[in-house]
C-alpha cells in the first residue's frame, strides 16, 4: 500500500493496475496521468516519512486498498448541496476543492447547511499552488482523467467492506488563549464589526491595538472540538478582516494561544493515535509555514500540505485524518 511521494511513472502504473488512489502534485504531472479510479489536486508541498518538503517532480499517492468499489465524480458548485446526501451508507467520501474558486466558497459557507451534514463521512482538502506562484497559477482538481478543473469539486466515493467503519478525526494544536471573547453579528468569510467581550468594535482596529499575532487563528470550542478560523488579511485602512474559513454568528471565538513548538506538541497528541491505522491525512500550509515543518517529521503522519482541510466541513490550520475500524 503506497502513501508516499512517487514518480509519475510509478503512479501511472498503479492507475493502470486498477488501484484506487488519492493524488496530489503539480498540474503538469497530474495532467499526464492515465484515466482511472483516482482524484487529485494541485499542491507541491508534502509531509513525507522523511519530513516536510516541496516537490514538483513527484506525486503524493495514497492508495485505498480497502475499497471494494469506488467511483469518482465531479460536483459543480450548485451540486455541492447534495454531497452528503449522495454518499452511500457503506461509503466514505473524499473531496478536493480548488482554492479560491466558487466551489470552494460555496462549500466553505454552506456545507453545514447541506442535507445530511455530518451524517456521511466526508473528508478531503483544498488544492493550491506553489507559494511563489500565488496570483499567477490557479489551483486545480482532477477527477479520474487529465481534465483540470478550476471551479468544481472532485469527489471519490469509496465503498467499504462489511464490518469496516470510517472515523474522521482532527489534530488541532491550537487552544483558545486567555484574551477577550469575540463574536460576530454576521457570519462569513470577512468581517468588519465584531463584539469583543460584548462591545461592538472594528475587528481590524482591535487586532491592531492588541498587536495580535494573526498567524494564530481564532479558535472556537465546538462541544469539545477546537475549530479554527485563520486570518487571511487584516486591513486597518478599510477596517476589513478576511478569513480562510467562515466565522459563524453566535459562536464564541478567542485568539489562539501560541504553540511553543509544533512538532513537540504534535507528537504529544499523536500518542493517542496509531499512525499505521491512518488511511489518509492532510495538514495545513499555514502549519507547514508558521511551524517551519520543511525537513521536520510529524510522527509518521504523512500526506499533502493543503490550502484548507475538510472534515465534514472546511477547517483551517488543522490536521485531518481518517481511521478505519473493525466492528
Amino acid at each position: 500500500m503506497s502513501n508516499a511521494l512517487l514518480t509519475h511513472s510509478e503512479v501511472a502504473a498503479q492507475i493502470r493496475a486498477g488501484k484506487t488512489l488519492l493524488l496530489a502534485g503539480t498540474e503538469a504531472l497530474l495532467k499526464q496521468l492515465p484515466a482511472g479510479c483516482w482524484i487529485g489536486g494541485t499542491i507541491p508541498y508534502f509531509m513525507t516519512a522523511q519530513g516536510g518538503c516541496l516537490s514538483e517532480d513527484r506525486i503524493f499517492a495514497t492508495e485505498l486498498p480497502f475499497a471494494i468499489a469506488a467511483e469518482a465524480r465531479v460536483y459543480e458548485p450548485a451540486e455541492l448541496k447534495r454531497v452528503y446526501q449522495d454518499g452511500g451508507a457503506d461509503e466514505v467520501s473524499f473531496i478536493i476543492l480548488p482554492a479560491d474558486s466558487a466551489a470552494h466558497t460555496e462549500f466553505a459557507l454552506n456545507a453545514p447547511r447541506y442535507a445530511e451534514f455530518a451524517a456521511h463521512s466526508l473528508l478531503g482538502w483544498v488544492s493550491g499552488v506553489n507559494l511563489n506562484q500565488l496570483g499567477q497559477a490557479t489551483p486545480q482538481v482532477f477527477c479520474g482523467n487529465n481534465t483540470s478543473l478550476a471551479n468544481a469539486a472532485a469527489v471519490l466515493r469509496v465503498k467499504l467492506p462489511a464490518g469496516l467503519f470510517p472515523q474522521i478525526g482532527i489534530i488541532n494544536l491550537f487552544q483558545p488563549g486567555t484574551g477577550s471573547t469575540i463574536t460576530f453579528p454576521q457570519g462569513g468569510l470577512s468581517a468588519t464589526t465584531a463584539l469583543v467581550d460584548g462591545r461592538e468594535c472594528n475587528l481590524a482596529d482591535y487586532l491592531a491595538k492588541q498587536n495580535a499575532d494573526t498567524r494564530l487563528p481564532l479558535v472556537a470550542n465546538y462541544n469539545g472540538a477546537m475549530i479554527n478560523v485563520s486570518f487571511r488579511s487584516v486591513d486597518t485602512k478599510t477596517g476589513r478582516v478576511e478569513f480562510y474559513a467562515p466565522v459563524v454568528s453566535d459562536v464564541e471565538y478567542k485568539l489562539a494561544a501560541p504553540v511553543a513548538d509544533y512538532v513537540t506538541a504534535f507528537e504529544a497528541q499523536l500518542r493517542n493515535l496509531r499512525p499505521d491505522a491512518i488511511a489518509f491525512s492532510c495538514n495545513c500550509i499555514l502549519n507547514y509555514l508558521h511551524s517551519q515543518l520543511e525537513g521536520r517529521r510529524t510522527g509518521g503522519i504523512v500526506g499533502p500540505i493543503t490550502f484548507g482541510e475538510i472534515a465534514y466541513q472546511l477547517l483551517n490550520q488543522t490536521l485531518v485524518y481518517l481511521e478505519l475500524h473493525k466492528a
Partner: protein
Amino acid sequence: MNLANIPDRSWNAVIEGRITIQFEFLAIQLFITRQRQRLRANEISSATAILELKNLFVKYGNLQPAQNDLAKIARI
C-alpha cells in the same frame, strides 16, 4: 446502549446547550453545534433536532467515540 433509555430531558439539555459536554466524536461535535444554531434561528423544532441527533448516534453506533458520547448524555 439503548437510545430509548435516555430521557428526553437529557437530549433537550444537550440540544439546547443548557449543559456543556466535551464530546469526543467529531461528527457529533460539529452536528450539535449546527443543531443549536438551527434551533436559535427557529429553523427546526427541538423535537426534530433531537430526532436527527439520535439518528446520527445510530449511524455511528459502531464507533467507540460515538458510544462514549452517548454514555455522556446518558449520565446527565
